[in-house]
Each structure stands twice: as C-alpha cells, then as structure tokens.
C-alpha cells in the first residue's frame, strides 16, 4: 500500500485515509465579479496537468482531517514531499 506522509500527524499513513484534492496553489480571485469569462474559465477549469512533478492538494480525511500540499511525480506516482497548507510552493 502507498504510504503518504501527513505533515500535521508527522507520520506515514496508508493512502486509503486520504482524499485527492486537485492541483495546489490555485488562489481564488479576490474579486470574481471583475473577471472576464475567459479569466473565470481559466480559474475554474484550466489545469497544468504536467507529466512529472505535480503540486497537488490532499486531505487526510480519515485522520486529522486537514488539507495539505504534496509534490508527486505523475509518472512514477512517487511522493517527493508533503507540506502544510499555507506554506510556499516547494
């Protein structure tokens, strides 16, 4: 089973306790009403979808309940590192 390091629990925990939360570091526009349709579409739907190193959100749903960020290789499925939400991109 894949083990994921939770930065809050500070433990390697089984993958089934976690839920994937999409690409990380996508900030919600501060004033959505001023956005054009294209900008809004970009915010909602356009993702990098890289082959390789990917920054993504995970939630330790069946554990501490917290969202955190992870860097995972989309080819090997290997987690490079995980870090707390709010910390700068690694």
């Amino acid at each position: 089973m894949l083990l994921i390091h939770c930065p809050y629990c500070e433990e390697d925990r089984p993958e089934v306790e976690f839920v994937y939360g999409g690409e990380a570091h996508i900030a919600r526009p501060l004033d959505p009403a001023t956005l054009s349709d294209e900008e809004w579409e970009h915010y909602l739907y356009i993702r990098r979808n890289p082959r390789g190193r990917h920054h993504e959100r995970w939630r330790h749903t069946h554990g501490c309940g917290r969202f955190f960020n992870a860097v995972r290789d989309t080819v090997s499925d290997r987690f490079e590192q995980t870090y707390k939400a709010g910390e700068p991109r690694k």
Partner: protein
Amino acid sequence: MSDVLAIPALAVAGTDLALEAQAVTASGVALTLEAPASRWSLRARTAQALSGVIGRAVPARIGETLDGIACLGPDEWLADLPAGTALPDGAGQPVSVVDISARGVVIRVEGAGAATVLSSGCPLDLDRFAVGRATRTVFETVEVILWRESATVFRVFVWRSFAPWLWHALKAAERG
C-alpha cells in the same frame, strides 16, 4: 443529559441492530460493547485555549491521549469521560464543545490477537501504534477512531449506524 445517554444503550442492545452486548470470544480475542459514556467533540485553535475553557489538561500533539482526552487533529480533540460528566460549553469563546455521547458506540477488542483481528480491516501499522495513542482511521471503508489502551486492548469508536456491520466484521475476523 440522561436522555441523551440512554439512546445508545437502548438502540444498540435492541434486536433491530442485532448487536449482542455481551462479550464474544473465539481464538482468544474478546469483543465487548462498552457502556455509554459522556463523549465530546472539542475544537479550538490551540490546546491552551481549549484547556482554559474546559478546565482540564489536553494533549498538544496529534495522536496523544491524556486523562480520557485524545488529540485527533491540529484543532480537534475527543473527550471520552465517565457517563454524566459535564463540560463548560465555552459560550462566547472561540471554541466548540459538542456533546456526541449519542453519536457512536465503542467496541472493545481485547486479547493477545487483538492487533491481528483489527489488521484484517485496518491499514494502520499497529506494531508502531503505541499504547496510549489514539487516531482516526478506517476499518475497511468505515471510519473509526482507534484508541490503544494497552498492548492487548484496543477501543474502536464507531458511528452508531456502522456499528452492527463493524461488530460482525470483527467477529468474522476473529474466527479467522
């Protein structure tokens, strides 16, 4: 309070849930349904803030337990206290103190093979789950809170509607 505490005993021992309240023993592992207790979900930004409101010491690190209170997350604690215990509600303060006595039940798994029985459905590495630790995790697809009381005693907190299934799954596991 007494009304709330009466609910688990009635419903869980009832035939509709098909849960036997007595211990089941096979292969040296005993399953027991624990008596209702006073349980609380506690939320606060820091352990100190919570401690100040409820007037009890609370563990600061996730996974630790202290006098019936377990730290489940960076801002979440579970209190498992003797039936009838009341806690201050912290009105007006940035904390949440919620009585969840009727939310779930506790199944006690006891015996030399307790960890083996739980491992049939729980993906945690129980060899590294030290005595006195508690955490939320899963058993198969059911969310549970696991509390290790001693080397051979685990307490499994589970929501009421999942309890009959979990009980039978554990019974099946202990029969091998």
